[in-house]
């Protein structure tokens, strides 16, 4: 892929286009083609190259060539999706959301590239141990244990194989796009898959006579014990 503004272009150097632009200015320049578009792309590229590395550092040192590739990919996507920008924020904030998603997707891909779905969905170390909260009453403990057991059973019986795999992998920390990469699905499709699974589990608990308030209460109590 030929790079947008792989270095300061002659057109950019010739122009004295200020980096500061209104939203309308960004849209108009990026749609203009030719030297005007090249200058706007270079300005956006330069902004992202300065803005991203420091904010990504908490996820480890990101090699410079990776940042360059991420920014390049972000510019391509930003141009492709210009029609989706509705002016409800600053243009650069909107463009940064795209760049951050591209960057985090790449960092997650690199972090998880050697991990298979089988690696993360093998059986857990232990079954549900007893809830030992000496301060709680025996009836409350039994009720909470019942809800957790019911949920564990629903995971095994109510979900499709795909839903179960996605839910378990997600609970064990695998990012949705990485689950999707292994299942041949987009990140959004994985979100829908796990959302449908969570709704199915909630309905299963409700069918067993538990309403939302009881589920929340059981969660809060289980979280403390």
């Amino acid at each position: 892929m030929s790079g947008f503004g792989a270095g300061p272009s002659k057109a950019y150097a010739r122009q004295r286009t200020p980096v500061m632009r209104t939203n309308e200015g960004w849209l108009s320049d990026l749609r203009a083609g030719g030297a005007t578009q090249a200058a706007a792309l270079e300005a956006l590229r330069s902004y992202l190259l300065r803005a991203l590395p420091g904010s990504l550092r908490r996820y480890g040192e990101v090699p410079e060539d990776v940042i360059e590739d991420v920014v390049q990919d972000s510019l391509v996507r930003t141009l492709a999706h210009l029609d989706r920008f509705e002016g409800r924020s600053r243009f650069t904030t909107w463009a940064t959301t795209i760049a951050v998603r591209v960057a985090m997707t790449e960092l997650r891909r690199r972090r998880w590239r050697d991990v298979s779905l089988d690696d993360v969905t093998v059986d857990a170390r232990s079954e549900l141990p007893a809830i030992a909260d000496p301060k709680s009453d025996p009836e409350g403990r039994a009720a909470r244990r019942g809800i957790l057991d019911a949920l564990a059973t629903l995971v095994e019986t109510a979900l499709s194989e795909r839903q179960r795999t996605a839910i378990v992998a997600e609970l064990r920390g695998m990012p949705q796009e990485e689950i999707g990469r292994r299942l041949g699905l987009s990140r959004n499709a994985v979100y829908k898959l796990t959302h449908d699974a969570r709704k199915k589990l909630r309905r299963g608990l409700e069918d067993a006579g538990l309403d939302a308030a009881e589920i929340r209460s059981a969660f809060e109590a289980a979280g403390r014990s």
Partner: protein
Amino acid sequence: MRLDREEIVRLLALVAVTREDEVDCDACLADLAEFAESELLGADLPVALGRVEEHLAGCGECAEEYAVLREVMRSAPAGAS
């Protein structure tokens, strides 16, 4: 694929906040810039953006990306608008 207790408790937490109608990651991304600017300005959140907040509470990846976006905005380099 047996879950251990900690995983079941975390799943219960997710099930407890699951709503019938949630925005997905792409819809969240579409509104994230407006949401972030409203938050950083301390402005009242438009009702429609409440769904972004709900999504961020339940989606680890979008929440992670939002944290990076906020960091970028806090330390935004001068010279871009």
